[in-house]
């Protein structure tokens, strides 16, 4: 039976709210010996984890529903929220279902958290995943392939069997499908944002952090099929790209507030791992080489990734604006988020040159006060509408 829109959303919502990761536990329990490996934003080559027969699980902090007590004791006030709530998840046993954690090369906070995890969770597999900032195949590519090979061997050891090229290619194909589905979802929203509000799209993306990829692909497809049958009212809202929330996530109520304030979010960088690689990864070649090439030459630009040339800065954002038919950009960065906040003035300068309006605010994953943000987003939407009507 094809699930209804309500079913799909209810399922995603339940997955999103479940900070005990029951879906992961169920997946593991279904077949004895199954393992799950957590990863933090933004990007790790999940294809390798899945090829090992393990479930990659995206850990995106504790959101606004969890009280952080122990985690706070490890961080000064001037450090963002996500590492403390992630530690809280770990220290309260909520991540016991994970057999390991991967910490991507993103910022100094996540980097240091990888070592803290080694100290605090000695029985778990922990790996820092470095991605190169040199984009030559024979230089950065070779290094990255070696890094991926280490992960492959480590996971093979945990799984008790080697990860073959065939398994990797099969996994690449599964993620190609998944990426296509998510790209379709984003394209659909950009085309008809009144049909697919971001508060729903976001939940679908988050569901992909805990579901096996095939299942997630199906959920996304089900949503698209179901939502297209609905007749939802089209309103005169400002079309915006939201950027800067690639790591710590704003509360869902904040996303809803932006929409209620008169904005259609037509593109964003939530859960960027789903769309980090921009197109298909060939599933019939040397798998690690293909994953490396995809990262080096065909991946999204983002604050923690070096732009080789000045001219490259902002290209991805401008493309998001163009493809999404956006009229403005909202910079929504987590407080104390170095990469997002250091990148912001550069992107703003480029937008100003292109005469694309923007506004900026900061949030925390547990921000409770929506009124100021709603007001700011509302004023921004009004000003865009005013200009476009003029």
């Amino acid at each position: 039976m094809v699930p209804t829109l309500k079913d799909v959303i209810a399922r995603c919502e339940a997955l999103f709210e479940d900070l005990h990761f029951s879906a992961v536990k169920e997946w593991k329990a279904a077949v004895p010996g199954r393992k799950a490996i957590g990863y933090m934003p933004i990007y790790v080559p999940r294809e390798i984890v899945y090829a090992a027969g393990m479930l990659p699980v995206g850990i995106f902090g504790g959101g606004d529903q969890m009280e952080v007590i122990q985690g706070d004791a490890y961080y000064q006030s001037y450090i963002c929220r996500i590492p403390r709530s992630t530690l809280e998840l770990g220290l309260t046993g909520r991540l016991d279902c994970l057999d390991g954690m991967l910490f991507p090369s993103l910022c100094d906070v996540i980097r240091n958290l990888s070592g803290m995890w080694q100290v605090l969770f000695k029985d778990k597999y922990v790996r820092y995943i470095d991605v190169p900032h040199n984009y030559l195949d024979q230089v950065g590519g070779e290094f990255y392939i070696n890094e991926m090979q280490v992960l492959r061997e480590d996971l093979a050891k945990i799984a008790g069997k080697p990860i073959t090229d065939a398994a990797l290619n099969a996994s690449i194909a599964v993620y190609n499908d998944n990426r296509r589905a998510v790209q379709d979802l984003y394209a659909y929203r950009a085309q008809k944002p009144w049909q697919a509000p971001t508060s729903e799209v976001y939940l679908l993306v988050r569901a992909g952090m805990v579901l096996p990829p095939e299942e997630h692909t199906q959920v996304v497809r089900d949503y698209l099929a179901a939502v297209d049958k609905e007749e939802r009212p089209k309103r005169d809202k400002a079309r915006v790209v939201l950027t800067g929330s690639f790591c710590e996530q704003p509360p869902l109520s904040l996303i809803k507030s932006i929409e209620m304030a008169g904005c259609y979010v037509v593109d964003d960088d939530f859960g960027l791992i789903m769309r980090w690689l921009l197109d298909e990864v060939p599933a019939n070649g040397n798998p690690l080489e293909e994953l490396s090439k995809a990262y080096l030459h065909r991946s999204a630009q983002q604050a923690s990734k070096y732009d080789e040339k000045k001219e490259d800065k902002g290209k991805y954002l401008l493309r998001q604006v163009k493809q999404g038919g956006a009229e403005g950009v909202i910079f929504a960065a987590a407080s104390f988020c170095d990469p997002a906040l250091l990148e912001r003035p550069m992107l703003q300068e480029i937008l100003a040159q292109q005469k694309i309006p923007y506004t900026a605010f900061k949030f925390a994953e547990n921000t409770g006060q929506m009124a100021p943000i709603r007001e700011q987003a509302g004023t921004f939407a009004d000003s865009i509408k005013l200009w476009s009507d003029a």
Partner: protein
Amino acid sequence: MNTTIQMTPPQPSQKPAPEVQKEDAMRLQKEMINANYRDLASAHDQGRKVAATFVPGNLNELVMCFDFARSLPETNALQNGMRKKSGKFILDAERDGHSEDVCTYVKSDLGMMLGGETGPTGEKLPIPDLLLLSYTGCFTFMKWFELVRQKYNCETVMLHTPYQGDGKITQSMRDYVVKQLKETVIPTMERVSGVKFDIDRLRQYMKESAKAEDDLVKVLQSAKNRPSPIDGYFGAVYYIGPIFTAFRGLPEATQYYDVLRREIDERVRNKRGPITPEGELLEEKYRLVVEGPPNWTSFRDFWKMFYDEGAVVVASTYSKVGGVYDSGFRHDPDHPLESLADYCLGCYTNLNFPQRIDMICKYMDEYEADGLLINSIKSCNSFSAGQLLMLREVEKRTGKPAAFIESDLVDPRYFSAANIKNRLESYFQMIKQKRAVAGIATAH
């Protein structure tokens, strides 16, 4: 993160100010640093190109092979901090759209640019011809030079140093750094400078570096003596200045470290304590290990809070940001590029957390410290994120008391003298009590 400082003349205060005490070596390093600023100011007039780069993982020997004049933005920021200029620069940068949340070194630098690039000594700082983004131990570096590039359109070359996530340097990491040197960094430097790379010249510089590094290690390790003849934090920032910046590899630096080591040897022989701005410390009451960079805007006041109480820092992690030489690493002229790679890979903030904790515990033991003090810097996630775990772990493993204070590098808004002084006083009390208890325990 950085290091090079000069002692400014004493400021008038309530008490008749004693003359600032300096070792000969301190004078020498001040001259070197001033000479570098003069060099930078005149570089373009003399047809020389200018390279800017960072302290951790700086490739000074290599950069000198192309006759670049060398500018270190972190040094500029801290020198501006010492001269009380950084506060305004930071505000200017924030008014220009930079977040209050990000590293103040970056904002001090960007604010200085907005003010027309007048350097800390009042001389003009040239716009760099090359930004050498040697990316060791801190993600902010990348954004910093992207921001500078955005403004000045400078040629930029990246040297990506992988992080020691597993607490070791693998051959793949080393090869990656060496390949970048060969395939991108050196060719870019040749093109920008017009000078052909000569590996023998690099070897020659490295020979000098290794000699200076030997002497620096002896100086830093002299703090194992009782009394310690140096302060391994406040004093050490003077000692590491030349070697962490534009001078490593020059005979002047070798000579500086030779003079310094002799001075310190002499102090050890005579059982002398460290020199502070108010003269020799006569009674060493507390021996501390310090983690984290110092505050620069109130550097002298901060130091005074220690020497007034008879506290000496015997070892610090900050004095390892530009190279962990006491672990045995030396620049190796026989393997020049590989050793540059190992140098970058081995800097303190490129070490993982367990390594940093091990290092501190080892210092506590080898330098017979009474405790650990963490100066947590608001600007610097690279150092600061996770320091509270470090504090617990070190306390647990050594059984010695640890304390935590917070300040910032060059933002005067985040230096609360009264709070820090209170915290330090109660910390010293705690050490005293611990000692008394231990004394009773041994007496029984």
